[in-house]
């Protein structure tokens, strides 16, 4: 009998307490909307798993894209370097085949590039302005190409990679008959074979 009493008492005391507790909890839910998100968390958790895959995919795509951009940039840079290599001529004084200081600077850059591209061979073209005779200019163009070749060989470029050809006065860049055109035409050009 007394045991029943204690159980009954305990129930009388605990249940309202529980009820109170539950009502408290309910109140909390209503008063703190943040908890609602906690209740929704499992749902959110389901979405996150997919999102992670997408995120990784995006990251991967991003990486590929960046890689591609880097490659494109590199290719662009290389193309620019190649273009610079081919389009940057060196110039000479009238009736001279000696290298000017600025020409040596350009040739040092060309040597760097050639060192970075060991499988490339180059034709060095020697050109002259129209003054003087075509015969002598053909020989002078030969010397001009040879000057650049010797300098590059001294910088460590294999002479087999460097062919020379003289065009004398036959291929002017500027066909005008004045000092500006002549200065432009007295040059070495570098052509990738």
């Amino acid at each position: 009998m007394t045991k029943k009493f204690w159980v009954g008492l305990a129930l009388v005391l605990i249940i309202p307490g529980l009820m109170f507790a539950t009502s408290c909890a309910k109140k909390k839910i209503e008063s703190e909307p943040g908890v609602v998100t906690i209740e929704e968390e499992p749902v959110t958790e389901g979405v996150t798993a997919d999102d992670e895959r997408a995120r990784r995919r995006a990251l991967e795509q991003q990486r590929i894209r960046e890689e591609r951009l880097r490659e494109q940039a590199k290719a662009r840079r290389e193309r620019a370097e190649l273009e610079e290599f081919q389009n940057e001529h060196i110039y000479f004084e009238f009736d001279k085949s000696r290298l000017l200081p600025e020409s040596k600077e350009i040739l040092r850059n060309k040597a760097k590039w050639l060192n970075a591209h060991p499988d490339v061979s180059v034709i060095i073209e020697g050109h002259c302005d129209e003054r003087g005779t075509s015969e002598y200019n053909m020989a002078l163009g030969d010397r001009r190409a040879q000057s650049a070749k010797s300098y590059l060989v001294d910088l460590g470029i294999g002479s087999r990679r460097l062919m020379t050809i003289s065009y004398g006065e036959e291929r002017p860049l500027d066909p005008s008959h004045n000092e500006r055109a002549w200065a432009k035409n007295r040059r070495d050009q570098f052509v990738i074979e």
Partner: protein
Amino acid sequence: MQRARHVVIHLILGLAVPLLLIWSSIPCQARVYIDITAPYLRKIPTAVPFFKEVGAGNKHKEFAETFANLLAETIDFTGFFKILDRGSFLEDPQQSALMQHTINFKNWTDVGAELLIKGGFEYQEDILKVELRLFDTFGGRLIIGKRYTGHLKDHRRMIRRFSNDLIRRLTGHEGIFNTQIAFVSTAAGHKEIFVADFDGYNPKQFTDTGAITLFPAWSSDGRWLAYTDYGRGKPDLYMKNIKERRGTVTSFKGSNITPSWVPGEFSLAASLSHEGNPSLYLLTGKGKIVKRLTHHWGIDVSPAWSPDGKALAFVSNRSGSPQIYIKDMEDGEVRRLTFQGNYNTAPEWSPRGDYIVYTGLVRDNGTNIYIVSTDGGEPIQLTRDADNNESPTWSPDGSLIAFCSTREGVSRIYVMNANGANQRRLLTLQGEQTDPSWSPRLSGY
């Protein structure tokens, strides 16, 4: 010496006319009417009336005129003659006689003619007969008389043959009417070698490489042309038999340029750069190296043989600027020939061996043609105030020099007497013409 001889010629032509009467009994070879070695020539006033049509009347009046004009132009090319204006002539050629004893020479001396060339022709069924006679008007004497038979298309050859005989007879030297001039032309859109007759007639494209072709050079027998050509992508040397269109290529590394045939031999000098700097080499006509001719750090280019093949003129920048040097092939000694100006190139040795003609570039004075004695001394400037003048080449008798000039804008070929007189354009083609090279006398004319 030359001056003395010159004075003698003047006496003969101008003052001592009566002497001719006595001289006319002396054999023909004794008399030289024109001294082509004289520095200044007096042009001989010469009458070339229209030809007379003999036989079947006056049916081909146009030939009477065109043949006479062609003959006058042909001999006038030499610069030795003053062709008289036909308007002043006192005779109607169709009515006048061709024979010495029937010609009234006073009609010709009265209009100032010292020489008279009369022509007659007959043209029937495409057979052309031409008779040409050269008279000394003061002597009243036939100097040459020739008759030619052929087809109409042969008339130019007939007139040129007669002109050759006439020059041989008047100067004691062979004429140049059986020569040609090779040159570089862009008429085809790029540089190819063309060949025309001495007077610019009948220019024909000789090479067809589609590349750059330069520096034509005739062998001394006229059978071979050597030249530089980029047909294989770089300047190589080609030796080509003109008639058979066959030959060889010399393709050493670097430049293979500026050939010059050894007189009387099937070998040539050229500038090759396969050992580093452009140097002169002796090659066989098949392009094999016989030996190296110059050893120097600088540029050696543009060899030109003396007529006897015992000396070689060339261009070198061994003194710092391009100058002309002469190498004695017997003792190997090299001496500098030009000292005036600092850009002297493209030498050519005169056929008599006494002068070298070359191109000199002087700042503010343009590019001009000069000659200098092979012993050295003062050069003589032959062109002036006519823009750029380059690449001189002698006619095989040494009386004329062809060259190229930009005096009329684009570069064209011109001819002048060896003293610089009578400068005139040789021919007009599309594009620009450069680098003339006069052939030796050719057979088959």
